[in-house]
Every structure is written in C-alpha cells, then in structure tokens.
C-alpha cells in the first residue's frame, strides 16, 4: 500500500472521518511487521486495539430458570386460610335446626307454659295474705301507747 495513502487515512482517522472499512485498512497495514519508521507509534495503538478485541468474558452467569418464590402470594394464602377458619368457626344460626329440634322446642315451650299457669293459680290463692299487711299497719297505733308509758316511768324515777 502506498505510504501517502496511509498518511491521508491517518489524518482522516484523527479527525474522526474515516469509515469502518478505512479503519480496517489501517489496522491491516499496521499489523505488518515493518511499517514506516515515523509511523511506528501507530503500530502500538492499532496493535493495542487488535489485542483488546480478543478479550472475552469467561465468568459463568447463573441464570436460574426456577421462578423465585414470591412472598406476596404467601400473604394472600395466609389471608385465605384465616378467612376459611373464621367461616367454619362461626356459630351457625339456622343451618342445623331440623324438624325434630323444632318439635322438641315447641313441646318444651308448652310444658313450661303449663308450669307457669299452675304457678300463677297458686299465687292467686295466696293473695289474701296481703290482708295481713293491712292489719299490721292498723295495729301500728299501738306504738302510741309506749309514749305515755315512758312518761309515767320518768315521773316514777323522780
């Protein structure tokens, strides 16, 4: 390759005007063993670029395909369990009453009514005992007797 051409390319290169093809030309030129002595330092530059292109990434990247356990769903599950638990532990109101229970309930109710009716009859009969209280108040004036007696006692002591 003509040296002039290379020098032109180098100038373009330094102005950032070369195309990728032209840069490739420069690289091949400077990868030769012998280059023009005044351009020797370009050899190291391009050599450095060439060497650096070879460097590779060797470390393994652990790509786990397993989906990570999501703790968001754990809370959802916990809430669900809680709600189910509360639902089953609530005292059920009407579901479990059968016909037999209803009959037993009505029977018990009628027996209790009978008992209360007879009890009421009994209390009605005992009602005249209230007359005793009346008599008691009427006898209250007997207390008045105590006052004159006290007075008499006082006189005696003197």
């Amino acid at each position: 390759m003509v040296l002039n051409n290379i020098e032109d390319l180098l100038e373009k290169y330094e102005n950032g005007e070369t195309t990728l093809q032209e840069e490739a030309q420069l690289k091949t030129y400077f990868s030769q063993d012998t280059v023009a002595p005044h351009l020797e330092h370009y050899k190291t530059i391009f050599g450095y670029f060439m060497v650096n292109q070879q460097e590779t990434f060797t470390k393994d990247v652990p790509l786990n395909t397993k989906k990570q356990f999501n703790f968001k769903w754990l809370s959802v599950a916990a809430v669900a369990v809680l709600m189910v638990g509360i639902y089953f532990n609530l005292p059920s109101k009407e579901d479990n009453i059968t016909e037999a229970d209803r009959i037993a309930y009505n029977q018990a109710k009628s027996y209790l009514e009978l008992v209360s009716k007879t009890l009421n009859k009994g209390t009605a009969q005992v009602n005249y005992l209230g007359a005793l209280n009346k008599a008691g108040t009427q006898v209250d004036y007997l207390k008045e007797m105590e006052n004159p007696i006290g007075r008499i006692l006082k006189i005696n002591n003197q």
Partner: protein
Amino acid sequence: MTQSEFLSIVMPFKDKVFRLAKRLLVSREEAEDATQEVLLKLWSNKSNIENYKNVEAFSMTMTKNFCLDKLKSKQAQNLKIVHSNYKDHNVALQKQVELSDSMQWVAKIIEELPEQQKLVVQLRDIEQYDYDEIAKMLDMNPTAVRVALSRARKVIREKLTKTHNYGVK
C-alpha cells in the same frame, strides 16, 4: 423465553459488554461482576426483551450507566488515596518496569481520558460500531461522537509520541 434462546441473543455481545465494563472500571474482577450484573438484569427482564428494538445497543447503554454509577459510588467512598496524595519513589520505578511494554502505555493513556472519550474510543476503535449506533448508545448526537473521538485519538497519539521520544532521548 428459555435459557438457550436467551443465551443465543446475549452470547454475541457479552464480550463487548465485558470489554466496555473493563474499560471503565479498569479492574478485571469488577468488570466481570458488572457484566454478570448486566446480564442478570437482562435475564430478569426477559419478558420485555422482544420489545427492545436493539438488545445489543440497549445492553451497552445499560452497561455504561451501570459502570458510571459504580464509579460515582466509588469516588464517594474516596478510594483514590493512593493516587492523589501519596507518592513513593520506589513505586515510580516499579511502574516504569510494568509499563515498559508500549501497549501498556496505550492502555494507561486511554485510562486517563475523560469518561466520554474513553467510551467512544472503546466503542469505535475496539468494538467497531457505527457512529449512529454509538450515538444511540451514549445518547449523544453523531457529530459530538466524531468530535470526542477525534480529540481522543489525537491525545493518544500525542502522548504516545511523547513517551516514545522520552524513551529515545
């Protein structure tokens, strides 16, 4: 998307991601971690991968942002103490030996470039992307990419000739 499908998408450019990360983060280990991180992010968003117009460009942008974030957090941690205010003359000698290989010089010069120029050089001269692609990846316009690239190339050449001349004289 299965694992093999994902790998067939990612394989062609995973080295490019790694090299870009290494250009920015310098250390090989950190670059490996960053690459792994980027790939895992892609994997966890694999359901969206079909929606991306250009997965490769997208990943490169992601890598760039990730590494710059990392660098920022590192600067906040103030890990630069060795370079900023501590000088040991023995180290200079050691470095000279280390860098005697002129390719190391190139690496060192690129390392000293501003981040944007570093990125442009990496993407153009090493990964050989189009200007348009680079512009898209870095969210710049193509002219700005050219300008940054031209500046970076000139700086590399100038610094390298200088060191060469020091070596001769």
